[in-house]
């Protein structure tokens, strides 16, 4: 079959059931695609054919026996390389973990495995998920499959690119400040950040523990909903996972949107927003109005403080979480005459420039004499940003904004200084700080043909609502074109 065949989860299911293709043949088809496209895109860092074919054979045996198939049977999936996979190298796109092989599966991975998914491999990303362009990978940048001179976004750039290029049916990414939604926007696919605590993070390599979330990319909103239905839920191994019941997100996503109140905060449409992005998002909102949604103008007055708040809190947490990479237990060790010298040389050589910058900033913000001025102040402003969301959800059911201020930018365009890159997260970090769910769904393309994403935020644990609006928007677009 050709590259143009775009597989979805229901398509895989019906092809398997009708015995039009076996899971093994499907996996082989995807590895063929990867062989052709990955040398250019660099979206996969590690392929795991042994595990994939073993999984596929399990599915094919179930088909042969006539068993009822699990919900993701035979679905080829890619996993961001910050999520632990039993026996499959997990590098975090860092030299620090170049040879690290986890002794267990992350809970989200284990659930996908039990649901019959096929693990094609691990995707490239910014080192330890720190970046907005995938240019901070120790193994080279990922190219945007729709415009190879441009970035796929980050940090989950490889996961977004594999789905956009048809090199996986769905992918797991992680989102700390926008790392699922922004690459989803840049690559023209849906990408969902669930509520904080919705998906277990057991086995996720920690970056900023009060912000990290695991979530899906897929080619359709319904497929993202199907993956979320599998990975969501409380986990005894993660005390931050929430004991909140899991909905049937596929069913929720297909409900009509008529009568929903959509908040449109003017604070997200100000200076710095690319006019073509503004136009696409506006047309996406108008489309929802035609479906019976009510548009409500909003103010979210602390939006402009979110980047400063985020980069204090996320780096402070990162400086603490990344203290574990000291050359003692796993990963790289650079020998030194003393223990301290070993730590210092291991860390200075194992980490890339952006990771070191963030460790420095976070250590500074937590250090004696600066804690109150930076860390504690940022925690208080976080409270104000969360209050903006709580107040908004008194008035509206959901909030719609652009996902990113611009479409995908060129490789190298923003690498000269970290702050320029940080500002690409300006619309996504707010929801990250508030812990609410958010999705980016394609809403248009620029004249140059670059995709534009629209971001939909909902109240805590209302992923179903966010997916519902995203799916309505997706279907309105496809019937209009």
């Amino acid at each position: 079959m050709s590259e143009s065949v775009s597989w979805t989860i229901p398509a895989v299911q019906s092809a398997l059931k009708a015995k039009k293709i076996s899971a093994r043949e499907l996996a082989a088809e995807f590895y063929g695609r990867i062989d052709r496209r990955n040398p250019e895109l660099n979206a996969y860092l590690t392929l795991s054919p042994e595990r994939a074919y073993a999984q596929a054979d399990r599915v094919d045996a179930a088909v042969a026996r006539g068993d009822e198939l699990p919900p993701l049977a035979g679905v080829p999936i890619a996993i961001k390389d910050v999520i632990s996979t039993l026996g499959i190298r997990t590098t975090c796109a860092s030299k620090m973990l170049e040879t690290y092989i986890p002794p267990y599966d992350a809970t989200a991975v284990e659930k996908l495995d039990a649901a019959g998914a096929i693990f094609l491999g691990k995707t490239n990303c910014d080192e330890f998920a720190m970046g907005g362009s995938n240019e901070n990978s120790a193994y080279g940048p990922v190219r945007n499959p729709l415009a190879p001179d441009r970035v796929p976004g980050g940090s989950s750039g490889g996961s977004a690119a594999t789905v956009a290029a048809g090199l996986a049916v769905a992918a797991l990414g992680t989102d700390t400040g926008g790392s699922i939604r922004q690459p989803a926007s840049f690559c023209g696919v849906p990408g969902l950040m669930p509520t904080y605590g919705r998906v277990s993070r057991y086995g996720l390599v920690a970056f900023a523990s009060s912000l990290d979330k695991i979530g899906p990319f897929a080619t359709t909103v319904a497929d993202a909903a199907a993956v979320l239905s599998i990975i969501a839920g409380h986990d005894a191994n993660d005390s931050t996972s929430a004991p909140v019941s899991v909905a049937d997100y596929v069913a929720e996503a297909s409900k009509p949107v008529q009568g929903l109140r959509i908040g449109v905060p003017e604070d997200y449409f100000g200076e710095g927003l690319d006019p073509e992005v503004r136009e696409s998002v506006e047309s996406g909102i108008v489309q929802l109005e035609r479906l019976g949604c009510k548009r409500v103008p909003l103010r979210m007055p602390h939006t402009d403080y979110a980047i400063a708040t985020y980069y204090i809190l996320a780096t402070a947490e990162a400086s603490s979480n990344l203290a574990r990479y000291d050359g003692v237990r796993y990963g790289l060790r650079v020998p030194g005459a003393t223990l301290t010298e070993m730590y210092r040389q291991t860390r200075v050589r194992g980490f890339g420039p952006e990771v070191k910058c963030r460790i420095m900033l976070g250590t500074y913000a937590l250090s004696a004499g600066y804690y109150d001025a930076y860390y504690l102040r940022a925690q208080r402003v976080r409270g104000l940003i969360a209050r903006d969301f709580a107040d908004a959800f008194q008035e509206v059911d959901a909030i719609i904004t652009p996902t990113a201020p611009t479409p995908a930018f060129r490789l190298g365009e923003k690498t000269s200084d970290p702050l320029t890159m940080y500002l690409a997260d300006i619309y996504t970090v707010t929801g990250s700080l508030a812990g609410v769910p958010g999705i980016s769904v394609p809403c248009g393309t620029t004249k140059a043909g670059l995709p534009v994403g629209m971001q939909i935020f909902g109240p805590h644990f209302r992923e179903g609502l966010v997916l519902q609006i995203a799916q309505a928007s997706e279907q309105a677009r496809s019937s209009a074109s």
Partner: protein
Amino acid sequence: MKISREEVLRVASLAHLGLSPEEVETYRNQLDRILSYIDKLNELDISNVEPMAQVTYSAAAPDAARKHPELREDVLLPCNVAEPLLASAPDAAKPFFRVPKVIDR
């Protein structure tokens, strides 16, 4: 500059990063620019706002948070990962990780 060379060296030492002289300058410049931007947080009156450390589901289920259902029974479970962990250690002498000498006699 908001941050001196000495402060950069102090922070690098706290973070166990053996920076080269060039890196010290690079990070001094980058931190200066980021910290100057972060100064905008001083525009806000935060005197009546509690610090928000995390967003765990208390917002959605305040009662559930109070009862701590996330805490399971304290039951011992096997955790047989010592072998594979030691196998991927840079320098293991089972059942230990070996490091440069830390105590002088």
